[in-house]
């Protein structure tokens, strides 16, 4: 698939990756600005591991925080977009293979997609 035959898919995958990273960075910058304005003067505490509260580690919690304009939740949302970018890339590749009736690779993409989605829900 490195020949001209697969070129359009490669261009599409490249564009998808670029857009995802850019979007994620914008959310992280926006959320980071809110966070620093509100909490920039406080004392940091990353020396001991306590684990993040549910508001910053579940999709539902993060979305709730974004609605409430929490800076940290907006950062986490950007990071979710970032994690979703390679996942969307696998799904797009899967559709590309399906269009070419390359069923072996449709199955391979589906297995990878299932593993990634398992990772996303395994924490709860």
């Amino acid at each position: 698939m490195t020949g001209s035959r697969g070129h359009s898919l490669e261009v599409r995958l490249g564009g998808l990756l670029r857009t995802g990273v850019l979007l994620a960075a914008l959310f992280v910058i926006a959320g980071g600005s809110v966070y620093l304005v509100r909490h920039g003067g406080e004392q940091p505490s990353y020396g001991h591991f306590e684990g993040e509260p549910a508001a910053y580690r579940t999709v539902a919690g993060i979305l709730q925080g974004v609605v409430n304009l929490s800076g940290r939740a907006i950062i986490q949302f950007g990071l979710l977009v970032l994690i979703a970018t390679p996942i969307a890339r696998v799904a797009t590749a899967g559709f590309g293979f399906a269009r070419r009736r390359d069923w072996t690779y449709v199955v391979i993409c589906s297995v990878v997609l299932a593993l990634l989605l398992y990772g996303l829900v395994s924490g709860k």
Partner: protein
Amino acid sequence: MHPSTILVLTLLVGSGSFLAGLLGSMTGLGGGVVLIPMLTLLFGVDIHYAIGASLVSVIATSSGAAAAYVREGFTNIRVGMFLEIATSLGAIGGALLAASVNTRWIGLIFGVVLLHSAYMSLRPPPRDVDGANGPSRLAKALSLDGEYPYEGGMRQYQVQSVGAGFALMGLAGVLSGLLGIGSGAFKVLAMDRVMKLPFKVSTTTSNFMIGVTAAASASVYLGRGYVDPGLSMPVMLGVLAGSLLGAKILAHAPARKLRMLFAAVIGFLAIQMIYNSLRGTL
């Protein structure tokens, strides 16, 4: 170093991450290997938070770079997709393992992997060899063989030892999930030395896979509360900016000297990580 306010810490971590991203992209080894020692040794950040922040930055840099590479036609998407089964499985396993493994062990394994990276970065890239062993049956069944741009035309190559490469990729995934690095060095090793892919195809396909591998373990880390927004913000933005700049100035840099410098830096960090892990002060 223990900055007094979140703002100061953010600026310092952001600048350090920028440098890590710059070095990582100019040497092709990725920012994670410098980032985690910096956060733990210099800023006293707990290694779990450091790994979470590093994984996120790994996704950002590899996706950014892969976007450019796939267009050039070196990346073998079939090989990448097939091997991603192994790296994702390994990455999720490594991430789940990280929760139950003692911090000292993680630091120790990290130090050893760093030493290996330092050693590998000093070796010259191997010359491409034509597939002499004949085609592999599995490679044929999965139509993994490909071609890549070479001296104006396209050059064919055959993929060897698919099973062994798959197993090594699983190990690369475990290391990525356990240590929060892209483990690009291991991926290139598997594709270049074992599967006999051309060097440029190996490095670009490795980069293509790193994002998916890191996403698999990053989602586990996020769900378990290891990804702190306040810390990940300067790390992700710093590494991303540094690696974008690194990719731009790469063409004009003395690659050999740079790799020597990088090997010295990570060799030093490796010894620090191992020493602190053994003393139990990590």
